[in-house]
Structure formats: structure tokens, C-alpha cells
């Protein structure tokens, strides 16, 4: 019997906000890698990373639906929503840092770690004692304040248990935890995306379905405690196996077992197909008064505005998702790419990259600090 990690509604809200932070935290990482790929080069890698990034947006939206369903505060403009890179992600084997940087063999290894399925039976404890200070983690620590969830999967399992426990508790006195405004739920007609359709979270069964979808799309489909196929029941391939194709240089096809793809070959040109950027850049790395610095700063402000738009879209103005947020995403693509193509002074031929220092952008936008 697992002792419950989440026993109050407040704690569940914190965890779900944390889930939004986590699902979003991979987006800057994947986008930087994606746009570091040179035009017309590494098309296989480009397409694979793009699909995963789009699905992370879907997961973020599911997390927002879950938090909205229980009447939580869905606010992507809160300080700390975007982590300071590098950020830590828990893993059953070894915790690891996630960096912002161009597509490389190292970054591919990190992507695999982010999405790796937990080997069945490998997790003995839901939480473990970590030596790394908590403020570097992109998900909230366990309620005891000392330990950390062993894996992302365990983090979501704790949420699932918490939802079930709290809903049953509420029902015994004739209530429910699903008191959020249904008009805030983002459904398929407000958002288009591959890999699973959005649906409303309004009760226990839809909540559990949403959490399972997020876990399955990341780690892969596990049946009887064994990965049975790289494809899930909808014929979708999990993120881990999508990335593994790039490592093994071969596409999976229906029927393939994990680790043994038998589809067409994949070629990757590491040398000439990618703009190599500096890693974990900060605005202050760019020379004062330079166009680079201004572009990096402008990008952060544009991204902050994008988070503001998403927040409005998740709080009732659902039509903003396609009318404004999607065009804004394409707009910041056009701000990221020129940065990634510009040479960084005195960095051995490495290029610049966006810094995603969004907290600093909020300060500047509110006039507290001017660059």
C-alpha cells in the first residue's frame, strides 16, 4: 500500500502546476535544437523533433485542463514558470541536467533520458533523497520538503493517486473536486495537433485518461510490465522511440520491438547540417549594446507575451489559441532562427541562441529593469 503523497487539494494544485512547468520546460530545449538544424539538412531529425515539440504543447494543455478542472490557478506568467537552464530532471537511473543548445549527439542523449521509459520493477521507492538543491529542479519536491520523486512517471503516478484519493474523499460527503469552470477546458476544436485529441477533464475518469495519455506518449506503451511494442494502442510511436530512431539511425515500423527498428535508414550530418550554438546562453553573454543582445532580449519578451496569450487562452478565451497563440509561435520561430545563425564573438565559431530568461523579461516588461 502506497502511502498517499498528495492528501490536500492545495498540494494537488501545486503538483499540477508543477506538471505544467515540467511539460513546458522541454519545449525551449526541443525548439532550440530544432531550429539549430540548417535548412534542407537533417530532415529526419527535424521532423522527429518537431513532432515531439508539438506533442509537448499538447501535454502542457492537458496539464492546464487538469488544473482548471479542479479550480486551480492556471498562470503561465508566474515567476519561475520557465526554469533557469540548465535544469534538473529526475530519473530512476541517474538524475540529469537539461541544457539549452543546438542539436548534437549530447543533446540527443539528453532527449532520450527525458523520455526514457522506467524499466519495470526498477523503481522501489516513489521518492528518493537527492543531494541537489531543490530550486534547480523543474518539478516541485515531495511534500516532506527533503526528497524528490524518483522519476517523472512516479511524479505522475502520485498525481493520479492524489486525484483518486481526494475525489473519493470529496464524494463521501456528497461533493467533488472537479469544480472548475468547464468553459475553460481546451478541447480538440480549439487546438490542432497530431498525437491524440484533446478532451475535457470534468471527472475522475477523464482525469485519469488525461494523465495516462501524457505518461504513455512520453515513455511508451507498457503492457504486463513489459514494453510490448514501440507503438501505442492508437498506432502512435512514443517520444522515447521517436528519438531512439535518430540514435539507431533507422525508422521503426509497425511490429518492431524496442531497440530493433527495421524501417528505412536515417542519415544525420552532424558536421555540416547544424549550427553549433553556445550552451545555456544568458543575455549577459552577449556584448553590451550589440544587436545580438537586443535580439536575445526581444526574443525573451516575445516569448513572455506568448505565455501571457496562452494564460488567457487557458482561462476562458479559448479562441485565442488558434487566432493568436499559434501565429505567435511562428513569430518567435522567426526571432529564434536569426539568433541561431549569428556567430557568437570569441566562441570558436559557435553561434548565438535564445536564452529563455523569461523572469528577467517580465521585470523589463513591467519597467523594473531596462536593457
Amino acid at each position, binding site marked *: 500500500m502506497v502511502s498517499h503523497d498528495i492528501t490536500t487539494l492545495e498540494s494537488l494544485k501545486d503538483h499540477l502546476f508543477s506538471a505544467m512547468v515540467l511539460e513546458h520546460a522541454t519545449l525551449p530545449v526541443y525548439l532550440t535544437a530544432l531550429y539549430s538544424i540548417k535548412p534542407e539538412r537533417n530532415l529526419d531529425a527535424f521532423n522527429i523533433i518537431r513532432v515531439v515539440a508539438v506533442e509537448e504543447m499538447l501535454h502542457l494543455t492537458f496539464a492546464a485542463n487538469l488544473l482548471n478542472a479542479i479550480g486551480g490557478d492556471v498562470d503561465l506568467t508566474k515567476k519561475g514558470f520557465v526554469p533557469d537552464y540548465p535544469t534538473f530532471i529526475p530519473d530512476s537511473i541517474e538524475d540529469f541536467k537539461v541544457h539549452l543548445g543546438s542539436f548534437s549527439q549530447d543533446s540527443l542523449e539528453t532527449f532520450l533520458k527525458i523520455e526514457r521509459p522506467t524499466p519495470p520493477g526498477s523503481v522501489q521507492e516513489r521518492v528518493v533523497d537527492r543531494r541537489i538543491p531543490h530550486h534547480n529542479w523543474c518539478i516541485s519536491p515531495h511534500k516532506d520538503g527533503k526528497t524528490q520523486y524518483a522519476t517523472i512517471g512516479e511524479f505522475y503516478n502520485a498525481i493520479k493517486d492524489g486525484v483518486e484519493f481526494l475525489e473519493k474523499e470529496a464524494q463521501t460527503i456528497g461533493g467533488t473536486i472537479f469544480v472548475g469552470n468547464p468553459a475553460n477546458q481546451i478541447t480538440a476544436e480549439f487546438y490542432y495537433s497530431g498525437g491524440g485529441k484533446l478532451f475535457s477533464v470534468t471527472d475522475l475518469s477523464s482525469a485519469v485518461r488525461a494523465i495516462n495519455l501524457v505518461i504513455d506518449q512520453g515513455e511508451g506503451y507498457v503492457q504486463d510490465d513489459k514494453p510490448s511494442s514501440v507503438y501505442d494502442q492508437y498506432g502512435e510511436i512514443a517520444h522515447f522511440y521517436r528519438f531512439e530512431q535518430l540514435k539507431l539511425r533507422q525508422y521503426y515500423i509497425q511490429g518492431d520491438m524496442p531497440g530493433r527498428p527495421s524501417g528505412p535508414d536515417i542519415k544525420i550530418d552532424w558536421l555540416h547540417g547544424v549550427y553549433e550554438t553556445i550552451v545555456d546562453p544568458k543575455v549577459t553573454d552577449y556584448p553590451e549594446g550589440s544587436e545580438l543582445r537586443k535580439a536575445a532580449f526581444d526574443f525573451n519578451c516575445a516569448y513572455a507575451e506568448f505565455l501571457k496569450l496562452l494564460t488567457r487562452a487557458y482561462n476562458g478565451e479559448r479562441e485565442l489559441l488558434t487566432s493568436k497563440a499559434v501565429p505567435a509561435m511562428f*513569430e518567435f520561430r522567426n526571432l529564434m532562427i536569426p539568433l541561431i545563425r*549569428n556567430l557568437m564573438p570569441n566562441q570558436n565559431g559557435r553561434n548565438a541562441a535564445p536564452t529563455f530568461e523569461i523572469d528577467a523579461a517580465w521585470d523589463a516588461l513591467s519597467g523594473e529593469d531596462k536593457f
Partner: protein
Amino acid sequence: MEKEVIYAKLSNLPRDLTIIDFQGDGEVETYLRRTYERFITLSVEVTAFTQFDLQGTGQGKSYYVTVSQIVGWEIMEQLLDTFDLIVSEAEGQSKSVRKDLLYQSLFGDEKLGPIVRNIIKLWFIGNWYQLPRDWSEKFGPVARDVTFTVSPAAYVEGLLWTTIGAHPAGAKAQGYGSWANKPQIPSIHAEKR
């Protein structure tokens, strides 16, 4: 190393321009890096876009090599030398003096003028346009001098799209429904310089 030796080595550069990275400490790489920087300075002057914008297209090296391969490395260097001379002559003088010098010595030059105009067209449209017949008759026909699009990316990255606040048809889509929004024409950077 003698210039002729460098030019000879440059003529063996790969035709696949996307793999040219100008890295390394060899004399040819060093030469390429240095002259490429000068090519960008010239391009900033004649396109009125900033260095950041031009590098942001990712096309600079490919344009530089395209022009040099067509007109020859020697003529390219002559063009850059002439531009440098104008810049140093115009230093400390009014804007109109600089403009006059550019018109007289560069755009008005029968050998260099058509090339500079072609460099502007390259940045804006991504196409190399065949040089005028007068030019070829006087300075000799050059290999590969036919009108062509440098690469699919060159079309997409043309400065013309930014200039008119639109996106290239078939690429850089702005997302579902964005066609309902007004075009956003950016301010002209040159005015700020």
C-alpha cells in the same frame, strides 16, 4: 602565399555551398573568413539591413561564394578593395559625400556596378541574374553566369519578404488564420544607424 595560389585553391571549392564553413587556420580559410567579413560590411551598406539581419538569413556565405565563383575571386577582391577605399575616403564627411562616392566609384563603375547590383538582388530575391551583355562583351563571358535561384533556402530567406511584411509563398507559414491579420512591416534599420 601568393594571391594566385590562393585563387587557384579557391577555384577548387565544392559546388555544394552549404558545407562551406570557413573554419580552420589554413591560409585559404583565413582568407575566406577575412574577405567574407568585408563582403558582409559591403552588403550592410548596399541592402540597408544590419549585419545581424543578414547573418540571420543564413545565406551570406553561400552568396559570397556564388558571386566569387561566377565573376572570379580576383574581381570580387577588387570590388571589396574599391568599397574599402570609398569608406575611408568618406570618413568624417557628410552622408551625401559618401553617397556620391558610392554612386561614382561603385554603382557607376562599368565593371563593378553590375556586380554590386546583382549582390543586392541576391540578398533580396535569392536569385543570381545573368550579367548584362555589355559586361560580358567587355570583361569576358564567365562560367555559370545564367539566371538561377541560388538554393531553395535562398528564396525563402529573401529580404524582400521582411521588407514587405509578408512571408514567402509556400514557406515560413504564419499559422492557421493569420491571414486575417494585417501585415507587420518592420522599421527600416538603416534610418537608425
